[in-house]
Each structure stands twice: as structure tokens, then as C-alpha cells.
């Protein structure tokens, strides 16, 4: 760089994560050669680019860094063999994740510089610093104002028909469970909860328990969440299509074993967005009846009847569901609706797509304000595997602050989303469980879209003997286009 504005312009805060073996050496080589370099970069030396958790990058960007650069050994040159192959996948996913958070992806870059490439190092750091100066200081998350424009949620039509057909399988399902019950320790299903409009999980051990089994469009819970804690016992589980994918993912990650689980797959014809039903019912005292007929649900409470239809009031995940029947099963019931071609963008995500980066920050800030960090979203996720050792509240290490600002709460959503990248099946339990209705599923849906683009041959939760894309690598990455410097 020309160097002429160096003394005058305000320094920005750029964080560089450099691997010990190559890039740190490269920076050193540049220094020894007295190559002129901008001074905005603060270097953090790490053993390997594979050590750079994408969360380090997001944490820096959320907490005032204007830019973050990660640099490691060139692919095939990793000191540890494969660290940078993993890093490349993770960092590319991260780069594509940033926009949905309202963070300009240009503020983050990753590259490879070997210990002998002093000159390349000089080019990389100079270019990147220049680019960050063109962008100027990063806007702070907590400075985001309210979202000023109403952004319509685009209508989307389902990929398969939605109706109450799954209810018809109940008798056959009960019969099958009854015959298997003596061999199994328990079977997971649903039952009526505090009233007929609210189903809850059911743990079936006896024929009397089985009598209470309920299925259908109000059976929303993904029961796969219970499987890891029941490991070692023979468990039957009733699954919808999406729940079945969670079971597959758990099997794939060896969190449960195939011999211990017996899958009763019910062809699913859609579930209701129970939050929307609760909202429409409002405050009521007595629920008189719940009737499901075709696509229509009629709920009568306090003498008033209200109608819901799966077309208008289904969970948004059902609109783009391609797996109405579990990809893996031991018994299956009902016939699955045929799935249409194409992809549809989930409505909440389409709404975010229509926003500018500033608007997305404003959106997330205003939504996250009301999070009370109950972590229902985390605990309802069948694939959140750390359970009692979550990085967000463990003291070893003390990675996140206890401070309860919208920024910290948002950071937790980012932690959860990134930990699920490539593993999340889009089951929607995180969002369904949030008592204050924060539309957090959109973050996961965006990541699903990103991993679909990068690893089109893989879909989470479809095959047991596959490997999640971020837990593996390939030497050539056909879908990752690295930047030139």
C-alpha cells in the first residue's frame, strides 16, 4: 500500500488469527524483511487454523472488531495434516452465515500464507486492511435502532398436501406398539395434556398408557430429544418425518445405538403451529371440544368455536418439508403424501432476505431483547449434545459473559446455530419451544441453505452411515471458491 495515509487515518481494529506453523512465520518473514504493513491488525497466534472456532470470529465481530482475518498453512501443507481442510469448510460456512446476522461478510476473510511467503503476507494484510477501511468502523449491534419498515412475510405454498390423514394410522400404530411392548422398556409417543388442544409427550410402559396414545397434527414435539438420555434401554419411538431425521442424525453421530431403538414411523401430513393456535384462542377457561376434519381444526372454548386450517396455520417447517415419512423405520403407518419438486424458502428467512444488513441487525436486536435466557430452545433441540456442559453457562472455560444484553443473547443463538451447522435437520423445536416467540429458526434455516449450497450431496438426518459435512473434509472442494488476493 502507498502508506501515505497511514499516519493520518484512524486505526481500525482488525483481529488476525494466525497459525503458529505457517502464517505466523509468514508475518515474521515479512517483518524481518521490513516490508511495510498497516498497523491495524492485532495478531492472535493459534496452533492451527483448525483451532479457530468460528465463534472466535463472531465473538470478535460482535464485540467491536472491524474486521477479522484467519490465516493458516496452505491446503495439503498443514503441520497437523488436515486441520486446515476442516477449517476451510467451517470458515466458508461462517462467511456465508454472517449476512443473516446483519454482519457484512466482507469484514471477514480467511486465507493461507506459508512461513516463507513474507510478500504474500504483506499483500494479504494490506489488501484486507484497505478493504476494512473502505467499509469504515463496524456498526455496533447494540446501536441498532428499531426496524423501521414493515417487511411483509411472503406467502409460500407447501411442497406436499397438508391434512389430518395421519390420524387414520392410530389404530394400526397402537396394535403394533401393543405387540412390541413386552420386548421394549418403553415407547415414546404423545397424549393429551392439560386439555385436548395441548398434546404432551407420553412414555408408554403399560397397555393403559398405550390407551392414551394420541397422534395427528397437534403432536408437535420431537421426541428424539429423549433418546440420548435413555441410551442403554430398549426404546420405541413414534416419529413424524422430521423427527425421524433427528433419530438418524443421532444414530449417525453414535449418540444412540440402532439395536436399542425401534422406530414407529407415521406418515405425516403436517402439524399445526401451536403458538399461533394459542394466540388465536387467547385467554379461555374451559375447552369444550377439539375436532379435526380434513384440513380443518375446530376448537370450541368458553362456548366459542374457532377454525384453523393446516393451509394457513401449519408450522412453517411443514411448508418446505420433503420428508413426510421418516427415512429410517422398523414399522411404518399410513401413506406419505407425494412431495412436489423444487425448493421453497421458509417465510421467516425470505423476510430476512428482503432486509438490508442494517435492518437485519435492527430486527435481531429488537427480537433478542425479550429473550430471558431460559434455554428452552437449546434443551428442546434433539441434537444439542453438550447438555449439562454448554459453553454458554459453563465456567470452564468462562467463554460467555452472564451479562444479559440483547447482544449476549444473540451470541447464544449464534453458538447454537453454528454448533448445529450441517447437523440441523430443521425440525423447528428450538423455535417452537421459545415461550416469547423469537423467530430463531430462521438462523438455522439459513445455515441449512448454506450447507446445501456447499455440500449438495448431503442432507442432515437422511443416512446413518454418512458423515456430517463439518465433521469431515475433502482435499478438493468443488463448491468452495476461495478468494484471490
Amino acid at each position, binding site marked *: 500500500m502507498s502508506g501515505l495515509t497511514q499516519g493520518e487515518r484512524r486505526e481500525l481494529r482488525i483481529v488476525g488469527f494466525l497459525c503458529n506453523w505457517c502464517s505466523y512465520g509468514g508475518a515474521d518473514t515479512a517483518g524481518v524483511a521490513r516490508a511495510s504493513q498497516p498497523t491495524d491488525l492485532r495478531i492472535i497466534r493459534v496452533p492451527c487454523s483448525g483451532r479457530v472456532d468460528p465463534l472466535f470470529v463472531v465473538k470478535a465481530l460482535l464485540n467491536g472488531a472491524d474486521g477479522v482475518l484467519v490465516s493458516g498453512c496452505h491446503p495439503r501443507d498443514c503441520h497437523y495434516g488436515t486441520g486446515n481442510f476442516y477449517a476451510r469448510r467451517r470458515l466458508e460456512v461462517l462467511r456465508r452465515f454472517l449476512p443473516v446476522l446483519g454482519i457484512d461478510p466482507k469484514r471477514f476473510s480467511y486465507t493461507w500464507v506459508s512461513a516463507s511467503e513474507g510478500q504474500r503476507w504483506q499483500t494479504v494484510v494490506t489488501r484486507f486492511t484497505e478493504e476494512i477501511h473502505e467499509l469504515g468502523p463496524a456498526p455496533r449491534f447494540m446501536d441498532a435502532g428499531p426496524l423501521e419498515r414493515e417487511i411483509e412475510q411472503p406467502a409460500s405454498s407447501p411442497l406436499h398436501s397438508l391434512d389430518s390423514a395421519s390420524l387414520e394410522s392410530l389404530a394400526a400404530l397402537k396394535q403394533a406398539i401393543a405387540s412390541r411392548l413386552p420386548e421394549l422398556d418403553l415407547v415414546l409417543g404423545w397424549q*393429551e395434556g*392439560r386439555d385436548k388442544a395441548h398434546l404432551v*409427550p407420553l412414555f408408554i*410402559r*403399560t397397555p393403559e398408557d398405550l390407551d392414551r396414545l394420541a397422534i395427528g397434527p397437534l403432536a408437535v414435539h420431537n421426541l428424539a430429544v429423549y433418546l440420548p438420555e435413555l441410551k442403554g434401554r430398549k426404546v420405541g419411538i413414534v416419529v413424524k418425518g422430521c423427527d425421524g431425521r433427528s433419530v438418524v442424525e443421532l444414530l449417525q453421530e453414535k449418540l444412540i445405538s440402532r439395536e436399542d431403538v425401534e422406530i414407529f414411523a407415521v406418515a405425516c401430513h403436517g402439524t399445526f403451529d401451536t403458538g399461533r393456535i394459542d394466540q388465536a384462542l387467547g385467554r379461555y377457561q374451559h375447552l369444550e371440544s377439539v375436532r379435526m376434519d380434513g384440513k380443518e381444526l375446530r376448537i370450541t372454548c368458553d362456548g366459542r368455536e374457532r377454525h384453523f386450517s393446516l393451509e394457513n396455520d401449519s408450522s412453517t417447517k411443514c411448508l418446505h418439508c420433503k420428508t413426510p415419512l421418516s427415512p429410517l423405520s422398523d414399522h411404518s403407518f399410513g401413506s406419505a403424501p407425494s412431495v412436489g419438486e423444487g425448493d421453497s424458502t421458509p417465510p421467516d428467512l425470505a423476510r430476512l432476505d428482503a432486509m438490508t444488513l442494517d435492518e437485519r441487525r435492527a430486527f435481531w436486536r429488537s427480537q433478542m431483547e425479550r429473550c*430471558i435466557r431460559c*434455554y428452552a430452545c437449546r434443551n428442546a433441540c434433539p441434537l444439542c449434545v453438550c447438555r449439562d456442559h454448554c459453553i454458554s*453457562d459453563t465456567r470452564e472455560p468462562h467463554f460467555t459473559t452472564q451479562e444479559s444484553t440483547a447482544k449476549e443473547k444473540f451470541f447464544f443463538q449464534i453458538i447454537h446455530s453454528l454448533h448445529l451447522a450441517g447437523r440441523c435437520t430443521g425440525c423447528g423445536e428450538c423455535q417452537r419451544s421459545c*415461550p416469547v416467540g423469537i423467530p430463531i429458526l430462521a438462523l438455522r434455516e439459513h445455515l441449512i441453505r448454506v450447507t446445501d449450497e456447499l455440500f449438495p450431496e448431503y442432507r442432515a438426518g437422511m443416512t446413518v452411515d454418512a458423515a456430517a459435512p463439518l465433521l469431515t473434509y475433502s482435499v478438493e472442494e468443488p463448491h468452495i471458491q476461495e478468494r484471490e488476493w
Partner: protein
Amino acid sequence: MNCYRFLAKDALSAFLAFLAERERVLVPVEKNGARSSVVFEEWHEGLPFTMLKSTVPPKAAVLPQCEVLFTCRRVPDEGDQNRHVMVLDDTLTAQPTVIVATRPCDARGFAVLDRPYLNGLYQDPYYAARRKELTVLTLTCPTGCESCFCHWVGGGPSSPEGSDVLLTEIEGGYLCQSVTEKGRSLLERSALPDGEDRLASMQEARKKAYQSLGRAPDLKTAPQRISERFSDLDFWNRWTEACISCGACTYFCPTCYCFTITDEGDPAHAEGGRRLRSWDNCMSSLFTREASGHNPRRKKAERMRNRISHKYATYPENWGVFSCSGCGRCVSNCPTGIDIRAILLSALGKEEDMISHGTQSKETGQ
């Protein structure tokens, strides 16, 4: 002497503006998201608010999700350049606050918090400062609802406990009744017209609300019966099976008051630190995990037992009342639909009440 004033619906905003002249005013605001929810927010002119029961109780007004207890900083000693001293700042800030249109169960929640925080062995200065500056204007409930049960646990849709003023909706507006001296002076300072001529409508509305409630089971024996269940782990296991240990039930509860303390660096000062106090909850396994790694409540059933026992056995043993105001938020906000009423009744062997209440029995009959 009670003071009665009438607040016409179209005078609501002017009344809030009057309150806001002196204090921070918190009102329920409806939020749209994946599902709608109602949270308390600071009122300002033009803010759309609602009179609906909030999803999140206004507990944070006295017990914030997170607060700084003190900050400290290492600075050079003025007298001796070779030494450093630690400067500690524990200045208390308590903003005068008035909560408008909370419900009787939430107001009773403040009374539950007051006992340990104000009248326990040690008074909590942070809580005390905020509580002293708090005024509670409560909207009495027009009816009960399917998930709430205040009248089981000593409250009711018009219970005055914990409130400074009760507002009851009547034709055209709200009848305001002072409960405390604080409430009375507030009403007297206001320009609200006299409301004594409308007492009959107020009583009518409250009577209707009371009559709308279902039969309340007798919970007198609860402390004893629940204590007797202590070692019956089968019982607790059965009722906790569906629990995912998230903690929503406690964080949304107006009477839960456990916290944790964390020392952290201070982002504002490289050489500084701060002590934070934040909500904690007994449903989380970290809650009782000791530094050694030992955890006396490793199983979720043990944690559920703790929560239920605290609410219906040990707190009453200490204070004579339940630490539950029956608001029903743990029922309506639990992602797996666990119903505390059902657990309570089952512990008491009162399953018939459960069925009459529409709450399913999970007893397997063995």
C-alpha cells in the same frame, strides 16, 4: 382509608404520562414474533401497549436478569507510585418505577420475594433499594383461565397482596382502589375523578371473576405430603420424564428468586473486574454442581423434587405461605407441557381433582 378513583379508558395515556413525569413506567407490550408474547417495557408517548396478562412477569423490575453488584479497578496509589490499590464501586442505583397493569398473581409474586429478600436473616440491599422505589398498579382479572390457579394457593383474581393500587375494569374504564399508603398518595396526586359512585360495578366485576373459578382443592396438607414423598424417587421420575431441564418454568415464575454470582473482567477497564448477579434456576444441573464436580441433584427428577418441595413445602415451612402465586406460567410456557398442578395433586393423592380440572392423570395404576 381507601381512595377510589375512576380512570376512563380514553384517559389512560394521560394517566401514564402523569406517572412518567416522576418515574419509569412499565407497561405490558405485545410483541410479534414466531408467536405473540407480552412483555413489560418502559412506556413513552405513543408506545402501543396492551392490558393483556404478560407472558413474562415483571419480576425483573426488582430482580433484574443480570445486575452489576460492584465493579473494581486496580489503580496506582496516589501516595506511593510503587503500590496499587483496588477501588471498589458498589453504588446502588434504584430507579423509581411504577408497574401498570400487572396481574394479582404477579403482585403476590413480589410479596413472595419480599420475605427472603427483605425479611430474611439478611436484607438484600440491592433488592431492598429497588423494592422501596417500586409502585405496583395491578389490574384485577375478569376471569380465571385454563392454565392459572391463584385461588388454589391463597390468592384470587382480585387479591390485593403486593399491590399498591388495584384497577378493576368496569364500563368505560377502570375503578382504581388504593391498597397502600403509597397507592393512596399516588391516586390523590393524580387528576383522576372520584370513583366512589362506581363501587357497585367494581364489586359486581370482582364477584363475576371469583365465580368463574373452578373448585379449588384443599392444599393444607401439601407441605407434609410433599415432604413425605421425598424419598419416593419413582414418583418424581414419573412426573419428570418429559422434562428437558430447560428452566423456562422458573425464569417465567414470578416467585422464583434464585441467582448465581459470577466474577468477570470489566470490558470498560483492562485492569478492572465486576461481580454480576444473574438469574439461576434449580432445574439446571449446573445449579448445584459443586467445585469438586460432585452434584447432589444430578438427576432431573431430583431437581423437579426440589422445585416442587421449595414451592409447596419448605417455603411454607419458613414463611407460612406457598411460594407459588398460581399464575400458571410454568404450565403455559413449558415446552413439554408439564403441569405443576397435576404433580401437586398427584403428590397429595387428589387425582379426582385433576380430572375435574381437565388435567390428565399420569399415574399408571401400578
